[in-house]
Structures are given as structure tokens and as C-alpha cells.
């Protein structure tokens, strides 16, 4: 951002700045744009799942149908991936999915703030899952949960090596889990901002970057939904390891 050549000033990272809504310093309790967009995320999810499904009709309206399909989609995902006994964690996994999905989607609105583009947010989401799943594994299985790292189908000589790899990969999980989401969100938004900056600089050829931004937006819409899906299905996979640790 230091170089300014020919009036082309693109600040693609400015959209990620956390700012206090009413000015002043940012303390842990200050209402910021994070607060605003998380509130909107909660509101949007509530709108779909509570207001949309308010009819309770036997033959659903469109909004009710969307709510029911979302419900069925996540329910079936948990059942398929983590097994039927994972269904008792359905409300939390559903909350995670709705939060990430609507945070991603609302972030695509121009001038919006994308809460899931911040590593602090996604790290909390991922580490919550990580600690919950690890604790659950030990509570349900005690020390036999450690068999997760002991690949009993491998030759005995290889097992310690595999165990080391398994342990490392287990602890890398929350990192990849969180950076994947934040990285995808941040990259997409930054690229969109850079292309938009080109539009201002190119003069008569402004339409080229705008076309590019349009195409990018379609892609970002896909990425927003897919990242929410990936985050949720990985949560289910980790949950499966806690419920059924044996390989």
C-alpha cells in the first residue's frame, strides 16, 4: 500500500478492518462492525429457520421448504458421516453450519464485513470443535480413545511411526480447519477488491474488471456455501473419530 503509481491506490485489506461502531478505542466489549455483522448473521439464520418455517404447513411454502431442506441436509450429513449416535450433537453442528453459511453469504454484500474472514473467529470455531471432540473421546472411551493413534491394521514395526504421524495430524486439524475457512474468505474478498480497484484505474476499459468481478462473485457465492459445507462435514468427521475411535 506504500507505492502509489498514477493514482492507483488499492487497499484490498481495508475491508477487513475491525472498527468501533461509535468511535473510540476497541475494548473486548466495544460494539464493533464484528458485533453488527454477527448480529445480522444470527438474524438471517433466525429469519430462515424461525420466520420462514412459521407456517408449520403440511405442504410447505418456499421459505419453509428451504428451512426443512437445510435441516434435512445437515441431519443426514451427521447421520451419514458420524453415525446415528452423533445426532444428539445436531443442534450445535447445525448452529455452526448456519453461522458460517450466513456469515459467508452476508459478507458477499458490497461494503459488508466478513466475520469469517478473521482467523480469530474461525480459530475459536475450530478449537471449540477440537476441544469438545477430544474431551468427548476421552469421556466416552477413556484411554482406549488413544487407539485412534495406534493403527492396529499396520505392521507392528510401523505403528510407532504411524502413531507419531497420526498425533501430529490430529493436532494440525484445528489449524487447517480454521485457516481453510478464513483463508478462502479473505482471498476471495481481497481479489474482488483488487479487481474493483482496477475498474477505477482503467478508464474506458472499466468494464473488463467489472466483468471479472461479476464472474468472481459467482465463484465466491459457490465458495461461501462450499466452505460452510466443508467446515461442517469436517466437524462431523472429527466427531466420528471421537465416537468411534477404532480404525
Amino acid at each position, binding site marked *: 500500500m506504500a507505492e502509489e503509481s498514477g493514482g492507483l491506490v488499492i487497499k484490498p*485489506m481495508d475491508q*477487513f478492518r475491525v472498527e468501533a461502531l461509535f468511535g473510540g478505542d*476497541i475494548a473486548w466489549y466495544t460494539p464493533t462492525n*464484528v458485533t453488527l455483522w*454477527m*448480529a445480522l*448473521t444470527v438474524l438471517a439464520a433466525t429469519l430462515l429457520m424461525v420466520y420462514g418455517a412459521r407456517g408449520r404447513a403440511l405442504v410447505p411454502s418456499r421459505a419453509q421448504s428451504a428451512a426443512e431442506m437445510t435441516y434435512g441436509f445437515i441431519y443426514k450429513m451427521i447421520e451419514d458421516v458420524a453415525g446415528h449416535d452423533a445426532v444428539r450433537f445436531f443442534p450445535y453442528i447445525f*448452529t455452526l453450519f448456519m453461522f458460517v453459511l450466513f456469515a459467508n453469504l452476508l459478507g458477499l454484500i458490497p461494503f459488508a464485513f466478513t466475520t469469517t*474472514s478473521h*482467523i480469530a473467529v474461525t480459530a475459536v470455531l475450530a478449537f471449540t470443535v477440537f476441544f469438545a471432540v477430544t474431551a468427548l473421546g476421552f469421556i466416552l472411551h477413556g484411554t482406549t480413545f488413544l487407539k485412534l493413534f495406534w493403527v492396529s491394521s499396520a505392521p507392528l514395526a510401523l505403528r510407532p511411526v504411524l502413531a507419531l504421524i497420526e498425533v501430529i495430524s490430529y493436532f494440525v486439524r484445528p489449524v487447517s480447519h480454521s485457516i481453510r475457512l478464513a483463508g478462502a474468505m479473505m482471498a476471495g474478498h481481497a481479489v474482488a477488491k483488487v479487481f474493483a480497484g482496477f475498474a477505477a484505474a482503467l478508464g474506458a476499459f472499466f468494464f473488463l474488471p467489472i466483468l471479472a468481478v461479476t464472474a468472481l462473485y459467482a465463484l465466491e457465492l459457490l465458495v461461501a456455501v462450499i466452505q460452510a459445507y466443508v467446515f461442517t462435514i469436517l466437524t462431523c468427521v472429527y466427531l466420528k473419530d471421537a465416537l468411534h475411535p477404532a480404525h
Partner: protein
Amino acid sequence: MAESAASGPGMPQLDVTTFSNQIFWLIVALIVLYFIMSRVALPRVASVLADRRGAITADIAAAEEYKQKAHEAEEAFKQAEADARAEAQRIVEAAKAEMQESLNAQIAKADAEISAKSAESEKRIREITANAVSMVSDVSNDVTADILAVFDVKADSKSVASAVKDQLKGDA
């Protein structure tokens, strides 16, 4: 804190001073969303889905019942049709037998009449024949007598008659 207001490092994501704020509001948002979802939204959608499944199951059962009823009605209709057919067959057989019987009786009666009539006819023919024969022999007797008279041959009627009789027999 004041440092965050300045343009700062390249990535706002790495500005540690905003972390506590983000994490605090994230936890608030998650808790609020969790309670809305788990207390209101999900039970509501689940009950709607269960109601629908129940309604569909009931409808399918009702449809199955109607199908069964339709099947039974069809069976009853088929049974009635078969009964009617058998009844008609029986009536036709009875009528046929009755007709055959009366036909037989009439044929027998007609046969009897015909044989009676033919016997009578035969008898009359025989009478007529006999009559004719006796008339022929009478005429022959008379003619013979007359002829003999013409030739002046005396002959009693008795011998003439026997001679004529012999002659006729030979011809016959």
C-alpha cells in the same frame, strides 16, 4: 489499542488487539444462535417433518385400505357374474330338457297316430282288393256263362266258377 486505529500492519486479521473483541462477540452470537436454533427453530421443523411423515404414512395406509376394498368389490362382482352365468346356464338346460320331453311326447303321439292311420288304410286297401277280386270273378263267371251259352255248352254255375277261379289263380 491506539495502534489499531492507525493503518497498522498489512493484514487486519493479524492485529491481536482486536482478538478479544471478536472472540467475545463471536461467543455471544454463537450462544444466542444456539439457543434460538435448539429451543425454537429445530423442534419446530422437526415436529413439522414428523407430522408430514405421519400424514403420509396415514394416507398410504388409507390408500392401501381403499385398494383392498376395491379388490374385494371386484371379487364380489366377479362372483355375482359367475353366479348369474351359472343360473342362466341352468335355466337354459331346464328349458331345453322340457322342450325335448314335450317334443318326444308329441313325436310318440304322432307316430302312434300315423301307425293307426296306416293300419286302417292297409285294411281298407285289403278290403278294396278283395272286393275287386270278387267282382272280377263274378264278372268272369257271368262272362264265361254267357260265352258258354252262346256256344250252347251246358254248364252249371258251380263248375264255371271253379274253372274261372283256377284260371284266375294261374294268372295271378
